[in-house]
């Protein structure tokens, strides 16, 4: 079984981590609080992708679409309607889930690479709509300075909001992975034909997994709006989807916390490599190649394996 959170003492680590994260604003400068918020929401985004990709074995190539739709959904509700911003944070993820359902229905009958490619072309259409619907979405300039409710308007409160939502979402996702549905999904990933043969409706389970993944991607998109108060069409561009897959891979895509770790690594690497060279993509690419070559299970996967060998 895929070990949940860092092996047997997972719970201890989890609580410890949460306490550290809660105390973080007391001693970290503001920039790092912002950075940690970003890591958390990217981590949630990557985890949602991993739900479909690592646990469901679905080639979700264009996951960024749901992230972007969640963000745009929230941003549009806040800026274009007079409704409560909190409603926006609900509408965004729901819009993502709905889109995920529709795209899933269309794509699900294809397998693997074809699935991924059809998804990329459909996703690119969504991107194109957002990119050129100037009246509504502000086109390629995006929407800026989205007003936030006072209670989450400061960096620290935005951080806590992100932390709470991320932790709650991760808890729910983890619960789902450990549920019968999660087991069946992993069965489908390992062997779809076999799953059918023991009575599992493969397509329907995959579709459900896609909707769940889309929903949580939307949640992380809405969190981005909270943290950065801006949205851009780039959030839906296919290269961003690649980056998120890289996060999953880097951290370990058969582990639960791997994507979070991957997100942390990518954000930190990007931030600190870019302070001394403009060629940060070059280094990122090299590191990535290294990881794929030597740590195919990702960083966390690698350590888990080592741990298991020890035991």
């Amino acid at each position, binding site marked *: 079984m895929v070990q949940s959170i860092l092996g047997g003492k997972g719970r201890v680590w989890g609580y410890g981590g949460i306490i550290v994260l809660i105390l973080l604003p007391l001693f970290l400068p503001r920039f790092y609080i912002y950075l940690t918020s970003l890591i958390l929401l990217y981590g949630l985004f990557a985890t949602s992708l991993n739900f479909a*990709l690592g646990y469901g074995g679905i*080639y979700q190539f264009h996951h960024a679409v749901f992230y972007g739709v969640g963000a745009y959904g929230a941003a549009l509700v806040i800026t274009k309607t007079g409704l409560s911003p909190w409603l926006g944070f609900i509408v965004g993820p729901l819009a993502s889930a709905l889109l995920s359902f529709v795209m899933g229905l*269309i794509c699900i*009958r*294809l397998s*693997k*690479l*074809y699935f991924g*490619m*059809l998804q*990329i*072309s*459909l996703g*690119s*259409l969504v991107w*194109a709509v957002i990119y050129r619907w100037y009246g509504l979405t502000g086109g390629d300039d995006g929407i800026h300075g989205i007003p936030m409710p006072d209670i989450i308007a400061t960096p620290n409160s935005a951080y806590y909001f992100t932390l709470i939502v991320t932790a709650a979402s991760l808890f729910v996702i983890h619960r789902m992975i450990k549920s019968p549905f999660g087991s069946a999904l992993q069965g489908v990933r390992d062997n779809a034909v076999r799953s059918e043969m023991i009575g599992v409706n493969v397509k329907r389970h995959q579709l459900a997994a896609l909707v769940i993944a889309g929903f949580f991607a939307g949640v992380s998109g809405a969190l981005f709006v909270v943290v950065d108060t801006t949205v851009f069409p780039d959030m839906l561009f*296919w*290269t961003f989807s*690649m980056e998120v*897959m*890289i996060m999953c*891979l880097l951290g370990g895509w058969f582990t639960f916390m791997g994507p979070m770790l991957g997100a942390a690594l990518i954000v930190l690497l990007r931030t600190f490599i870019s302070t001394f060279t403009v*060629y940060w*993509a*070059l280094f*990122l*690419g*090299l590191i*990535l*190649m290294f990881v*794929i*070559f030597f740590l*195919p299970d990702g960083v966390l996967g690698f350590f888990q394996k080592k741990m298991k060998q020890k035991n």
Partner: protein
Amino acid sequence: MDFIYSFISPGFLSQILVGLSRTVILFIVASGLSLILGVLRIPNVFHGSLYMIGAFMSYTISVAFGGGDTGFWLALIGAPIGVALISLVIERGLFQYLYEREHLMLILFTFAISLVFGDLVKLVWGAEYKSVPVPQVFQGFVSLFGGLPFPKYNTFLLFMGPVVAFALWLLVTKTKMGKISQAAAVDREMVGAVGINVSWVFATVFVIGCLLAGLGGALVAPTVSVTLGMDHSLIMEGFLIVIIGGLGNIWGALLGALIFGLTQSLGILIWPQFGIVFPYCAVIVVLLIRPTGLLKSTW
């Protein structure tokens, strides 16, 4: 009214011709992609980077020989070979150890290489736009029906398309190499079992596929400004073409490129503002009707 007018105008035929010359570039690049996908099962994301490198190399060679006609012809031969050499190094150095990995890993690996190439190209060639002059013979245009101009260079492209297609056909069906690679595409254990060095077959196919990317870059260079980032716009189109044509099927790549090139150029005629969405709609329609592409996929 405009709609009907646009159809009966002489622009229609010239639009088709122009669409066809675009098809040629797309075909050359996509067939390389398809070849690699079919035989090696690698969705090669840095194929676009190789196309870009092909264009930059063609600039360098053309400038080294004074920017004239000789420069152009040498570039047309030299740039693809240069790209092929790069790809040989990558295949022997990296890919041959990765063939058994999952597709997802390979996609991300090739994406990582494309990140590296993106920055390397900037390090080598700088940020300045580059331009390869059109050779003397192909400067200017010929007049078509109704006096509409058609660039001479595009006629050259129209000529090159069938040449490349024919060469590929020869390679795939008439050479031993081609037959082995076809067999390997279907069942690689079997080919290995009969004592053929599959590793080198794969290397050769990979290099030929990449050579096509370089050739595409060299051919397109005189018609556009050679810039960083020209890889990104192309690679997506390349993949979509391969998908609608049928993975690994070279003729599928041809068909896909035709659909892509023509829907685009005719789309412009029908609805100028939204000409660009037509190819994407075509992709979706094709995949909804034939989920695994138009022609038989080797997968």
